[in-house]
């Protein structure tokens, strides 16, 4: 009844122990003897210049060998109709090219699969890329420089909104074109604000007045927030930082700037507005749904959200929905969101040619309004917006006028390959402020150290 492990087990165990010890010893020896590597940092600034670029081959352009290319995308169900229309139009124009669209899930999934495809050396010819990840991929040489084709076909680059185009350039090379473009805007309850007789603020110093008129309280508890800013994605408050005169990284992108006086202005205001009970801020998973629901219930008068959500708000609100560009202080900008269309460096030459034709077609001025409206994103071409078709578009979607009045103030996000990593650090400060009601100013000093560590580690 009290028998222990049988003798066999007793014999085996010391042997096992020895070999594991040996293995552990080896591991620790490797850890302690090997040494680390150094590295430098890079800057991403620099205008795109085509002077030194050799134009792509004309022979390729006229080649009509039948070819099939894959287009990896992240277009949700609602956008598929538009996509299929575009592909069928494209194939009418170029019968020798077959485009096979492959849905790869949302942007994070798409990016994972792209990385795996590059590692496996089996890439699609053309793909979407979410705008903030362009730098990371371009830095590793995953995407092809479009310069040679732009030069050969004399693409009118100044017809694109400047910031939108720049968002897909990196280190002086144009890696892609804006395809589905959004920007964060204030979506407001127009019925409510009209009743109260207030306009959405255009400047920071109008916000206190706006709050006083819109916020409703019962005792200490807010029953109606003046506005909400999403805390779950840095995309929403990076432009607030910039608008307040601040920066995320220093000019040469070598060090953190989030702790600087000007860079702290926005978050100190957030802290104040939050403590006053005027501003609502959601953080974490599910926070987006909550904010949406509260807005639709009339518990928040105005929410900052992506312009791509406008259709959803218009369909679900039982009040009139308005849109205003986010308020500015020293400057007034908002960041570009959404995805671009890029070509993979690892594709074969003929595939690249076909991919270029597809990219050019998808982003062409002729299709721009139709495409934008079918997917619910913003047009990118000035000539398209100024056309008759553009006028009709604004009649159907008057809310977007607010964005087009600031067409060139839709700026690229900070382009740094380590952005996805270090942005998490100051996002955490926002989280501490929202969830634990902590003062963000001292926390940002800590965050700056962490960001600098990450930048030093990046090579």
């Amino acid at each position, binding site marked *: *009844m*009290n*028998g*222990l*492990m049988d003798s066999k087990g007793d014999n085996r*165990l010391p042997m096992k*122990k020895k070999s*594991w010890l040996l293995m*552990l010893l080896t*591991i620790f020896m*490797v*850890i*302690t*003897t*090997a*040494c*680390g*590597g150094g590295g430098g940092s890079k800057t991403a600034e620099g205008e795109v210049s085509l002077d030194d670029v050799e134009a792509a081959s004309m022979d390729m352009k006229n080649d009509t060998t039948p070819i099939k290319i894959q287009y990896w995308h992240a277009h949700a169900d609602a956008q598929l109709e538009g996509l299929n229309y575009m592909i069928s139009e494209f194939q009418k124009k170029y019968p020798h090219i077959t485009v096979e669209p492959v849905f790869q899930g949302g942007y*994070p999934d798409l*990016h*994972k699969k*792209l*990385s*795996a495809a*590059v*590692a496996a050396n089996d890439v699609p010819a053309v793909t979407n890329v979410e705008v903030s990840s362009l730098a*990371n*991929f371009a830095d*590793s*040489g*995953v995407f092809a420089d479009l310069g040679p084709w732009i030069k050969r076909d004399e693409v009118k680059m100044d017809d694109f909104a400047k910031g939108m185009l720049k968002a897909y350039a990196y280190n002086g090379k144009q890696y892609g074109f804006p395809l589905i473009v959004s920007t964060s805007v204030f979506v407001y309850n127009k019925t409510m604000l009209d009743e109260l007789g207030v306009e959405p603020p255009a400047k920071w110093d109008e916000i206190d007045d706006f709050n006083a008129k819109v916020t409703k309280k019962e005792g200490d508890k807010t029953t109606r927030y003046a506005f909400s800013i999403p805390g779950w994605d840095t995309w929403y408050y990076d432009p607030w930082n910039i608008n307040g005169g601040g920066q995320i990284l220093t000019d040469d992108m070598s060090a953190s700037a989030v702790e600087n006086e000007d860079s702290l202005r926005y978050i100190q205001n957030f802290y104040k507005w939050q403590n006053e009970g005027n501003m609502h801020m959601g*953080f*974490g*998973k*599910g*926070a987006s749904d*909550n904010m949406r*629901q509260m807005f639709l219930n009339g518990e928040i008068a105005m929410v900052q959200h992506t312009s791509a959500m406008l259709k959803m708000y218009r369909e679900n609100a039982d009040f009139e929905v308005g849109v205003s560009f986010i308020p500015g202080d020293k400057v007034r900008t908002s960041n570009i969101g959404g995805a671009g269309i890029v070509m993979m460096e690892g594709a074969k030459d003929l595939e690249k040619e076909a991919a270029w034709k597809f990219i050019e077609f998808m982003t062409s001025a002729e299709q721009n309004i139709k495409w934008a409206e079918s997917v619910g994103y913003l047009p990118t071409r000035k000539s398209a917006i100024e056309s008759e078709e553009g006028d009709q578009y604004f009649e159907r979607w008057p809310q977007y006028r607010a964005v087009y009045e600031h067409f060139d103030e839709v700026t690229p996000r900070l382009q740094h390959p380590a952005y*996805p*990593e270090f942005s998490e650090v100051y996002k*955490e400060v926002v*989280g*501490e402020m929202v*969830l*634990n009601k902590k003062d963000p100013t001292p926390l940002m000093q800590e965050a700056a150290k962490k960001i600098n560590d990450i930048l030093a*580690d990046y*090579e």
Partner: protein
Amino acid sequence: MPMETSKQMTKAASKRATASVSKRMSHTVIEKWKDFSFAVPALLFMGVFLYYPLGYSIYLSFTNWNMTRPVKKFVGADNYTRLLSSPDFYHSLKVTFLYTFMDVVLTLAIGLLFALLLNVSSSRLFGFMRGVIFMPYYVSMVVAAMVFTWIYNGQYGLLNNVVSWFGMDPVEWLNNPSTALPALVAVSVWKGVGFAMILFIAGMRGIPAEYYEAASIDGASKFRQFRNITLPLLSPMTLFLVITSFISSMQVFQSIDVMTAGGPLKATNAIVYWIYTMAFSEFKTGRASALVMILFVIILLLTLVQFLVSRKKVHYEG
């Protein structure tokens, strides 16, 4: 010449002997290779899908590869030293251990309780009850996590509805750094308790009734019987459950991915989830491989410790 002949004879004998030995040897060698050949398909499979990737990730852990860069630059133990000196690592380790501890202890304790309660073979009702408790075990974790996400929702979740009957304020269960981890543990316990219960019941039924008879003749109370007979004789089963649930809790991933994404404020950023984000959203494949190796060693060591402790504490019947 007798010497000569005897020499020759011994020579011949030894020659014959070696021949037969080598024959026997070659026979056993062939036998061994034949045995081995049966294992080849399995070994090949393991080689391609386990040993090669394992070896390759050890190699990657010494590089700064990011999955897309063509060159895998060797950086020595840099990945290891950086991880081992980063507070985030110790935070994740703490989260993982906390989760594992709560998960293992609660699953086993509640499982044992249910086993004691429902170990009645003659009753249909009890059989049904066991079925009900076991049921969550075969619900997929992703499905369970999605359902619980809704239950835990701060605005319209079921749990807050229940809580409000007792006059408590609604809680953002998954968005509150102090409740998020216990909330995840609860899902895992809910799912795993039935399995622990079934194994405990199987263990209890393996204990000979004579021991209990002898004990009750000697006047031992039910509690004494439980403590001195049931518990010690269940120890092999307990060891099995501790080790399997320990290893699976250390590798918790799905529920975190679906319910919290490691948040809020990294409160549920367990190691495996961290490995995943590091490798596939920050694309630090080399660093993530190093973390994989560290986790591997930790689990290995702790499992070893469990075995060693169990040599003293586990009682095998007979």
